[in-house]
């Protein structure tokens, strides 16, 4: 689905002609004030129900969508380079959602993956994209990606991120970043070849925080491939865009046949307020991103600022509400990110993954990207085993009822929710995996088997 030139030019033009707004005013008045008044208008305040972290109220979800549409129309996207607001009419926003595909296929050579819009309790298997862009050292990159690609439940590759390029630190915005764009593609190809999965679709460019990675690695000989791979456009909070993101969008257009992921997040406790505000912000932002970026996949998802994750009750409720709202009221292929706080070789990482992935599976998410092991805080703290576990839960929970999911969540949450602020780091890939055989240590495998058994006893269909 190529990027439409007229729609693209409209966005670029409005970034220079829209209403002026300074960032401080945006963060402290426009965002909180507008969201608060819309929450009030639609009677959405204090609707978060931590006792039932997976929403079961369809009417409430539909009300959130109408509120989100109004918020998107009233607020727009702030371009932080020009300090102008890119605004859209309600008709343009609805057309933007309508133009997004309900189904599309990426990948090649027998590794094609089809993304489909999913309904609530939908038995359609969701798509698992792994891992998140967690920093790793160069010697770990290829074995780790190979190990992850060997996991059958993994459909697409996104991360990890390289700390260095040919031994030199990757510095954001510098020529090193331009270089790492293609370098990451080359290393991914090598890892996928070793795993026997060359042709797997990839999200690009995880290592690169600015546009240089995409300019240096996408649509060039030997780089990531338009039509097969998806370009990441991750908007900063709250409802902002930048020249860096718009540069990437133009590069996708220039390459033709390009596919865009439009993503962002909202913090519970941040600019948008509490869980209801963050939920509303995510819905509004998703509508804006699909319209402005012509995205085929993505969404804005909530985090909890207190522990920088989304596996606690309030964040799970917000996650479930965002994706149920989008599932019931649009046909888009919405993607979430699950943010765990615990690291490898901890029971907590697996419990967080179990509850979070189940929540997304029953709430209509088309796809999910993860794992964000140990909150992405430590270099080399990510392994294929938790990626396998999270993917298993995600896929096998498809078709489960929300009532059943709530029962299971309420059994599993008490096993970790008191520890969310502790964020145990666990062990690094080098400490719990054999790099030659790409097998986990006995300790890690046994823990995986034990927690999986506990989850099966709690009712997860993992047997």
């Amino acid at each position, binding site marked *: 689905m190529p990027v439409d030139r007229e729609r693209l030019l409209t966005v670029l033009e409005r970034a220079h002609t829209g209403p002026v707004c300074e960032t401080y005013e945006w963060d402290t008045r426009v965002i909180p004030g507008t969201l608060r008044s819309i929450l009030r208008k639609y009677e959405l305040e204090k609707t978060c129900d931590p006792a039932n972290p997976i929403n079961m109220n369809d009417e409430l979800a539909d009300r959130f969508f109408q509120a989100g549409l109004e918020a998107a129309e009233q607020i727009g996207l702030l371009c*932080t380079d020009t300090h102008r607001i890119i605004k859209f009419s309600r008709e343009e926003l609805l057309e933007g959602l309508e133009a997004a595909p309900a189904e599309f296929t990426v990948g090649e050579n027998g590794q094609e993956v089809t993304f489909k819009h999913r309904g609530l309790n939908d038995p359609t298997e969701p798509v698992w994209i792994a891992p998140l862009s967690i*920093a790793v050292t160069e010697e770990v990159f290829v074995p780790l990606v190979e190990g992850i690609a060997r996991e059958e439940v993994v459909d697409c590759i996104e991360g990890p991120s390289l700390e260095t390029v040919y031994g030199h630190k990757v510095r*954001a915005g510098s020529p090193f*970043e331009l270089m790492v764009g293609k370098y990451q593609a080359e290393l991914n190809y090598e890892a996928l070849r070793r795993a026997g999965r060359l042709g797997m679709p990839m999200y690009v460019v995880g290592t690169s925080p600015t546009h240089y990675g995409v300019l240096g690695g996408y649509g060039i000989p030997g780089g990531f491939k338009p039509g097969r791979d998806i370009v990441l456009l991750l908007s900063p*909070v709250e409802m902002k865009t930048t020249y860096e993101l718009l540069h990437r969008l133009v590069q996708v257009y220039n390459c033709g046949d390009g596919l865009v992921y439009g993503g962002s997040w909202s913090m519970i406790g941040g600019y948008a307020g509490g869980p209801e505000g963050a939920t509303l912000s995510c819905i509004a932002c998703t509508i804006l991103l699909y319209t402005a970026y012509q995205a085929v996949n993505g969404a804005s998802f909530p985090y909890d600022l207190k522990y920088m994750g989304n596996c606690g009750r309030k964040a799970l409720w917000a996650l479930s509400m965002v994706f149920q709202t989008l599932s019931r009221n649009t046909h888009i292929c919405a993607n979430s990110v699950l943010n765990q706080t615990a690291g490898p070789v901890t029971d907590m990482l697996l419990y967080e993954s179990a509850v979070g992935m189940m929540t997304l599976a029953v709430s209509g998410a088309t796809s999910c990207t993860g794992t964000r092991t140990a909150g992405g805080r430590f*270099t080399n703290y990510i392994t294929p085993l938790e990626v396998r576990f999270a993917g298993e839960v995600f896929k096998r929970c498809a078709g489960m009822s929300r009532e059943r999911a709530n029962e299971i969540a309420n059994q599993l949450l008490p096993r970790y929710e008191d520890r969310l602020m502790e964020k145990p780091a666990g062990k690094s890939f080098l400490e719990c995996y054999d790099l030659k055989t790409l097998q986990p240590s006995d300790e890690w495998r046994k823990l995986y088997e034990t927690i999986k058994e506990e989850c099966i006893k709690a009712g997860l269909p993992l047997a």
Partner: protein
Amino acid sequence: MGKEELLARLKQKFFDESYEDEIVPVAQEIVAQGIDVLEAIQAASEAIRQVGDAYEAGELFLPDLMIAGEKMKRCMDIFRPHLKAGAGEAKGGKVVLGTVSGDIHDIGKNLVGTMLTVGGYELIDLGVDVPPLEFVTTARDKGADVLALSALMTASLPYQQEVIQLLKETGLREKVFVIVGGGPVTAEFAQRIGADGWAENAAGALKLVDRILAGGGKPAQTFVAIG
């Protein structure tokens, strides 16, 4: 309006939805009436503490904290010239804060900035995507006591080290403390790149600045971590 009523009005301004500048006439009236500005500062500090408690309890959110911090800054601009020498300037340190090059994340930085402002420090916020040299020249030109460097992206971490290296090369390293923080920034990393301190969160950043400035030590000599 009497003293008690004016001080109560000052405190109330931290909780209502008024614009930041609307607290200025109240502060000016306090000064005009000859009320001891130390009492006014104590009242404002109490209000700020209550805002912080409400934030911790999930009743107020980041924008409320930021607005309260800005109001405090405006009050101090009015009260400071009327303080008797040595009184009330509990800390008085100057902190230059920013998110380093290539990184446009600002939530953590804004939280730290608010905590430092309400903690009594003079804050110079350079914003996001700040080049290393700008940190160094601002620290030099403004006579900063502390440089506070935030980073959330892995590819931006090298710039925290580059700021420290630039300080060394320009002969400024022993004149300014450097503290670092952000999602992927660990205490080990902070120590490895030669920072003076690291804190896990915004509340910790305030404790960290308190400790390094009150400790009597000099920059580039010790390392403090607040986890």
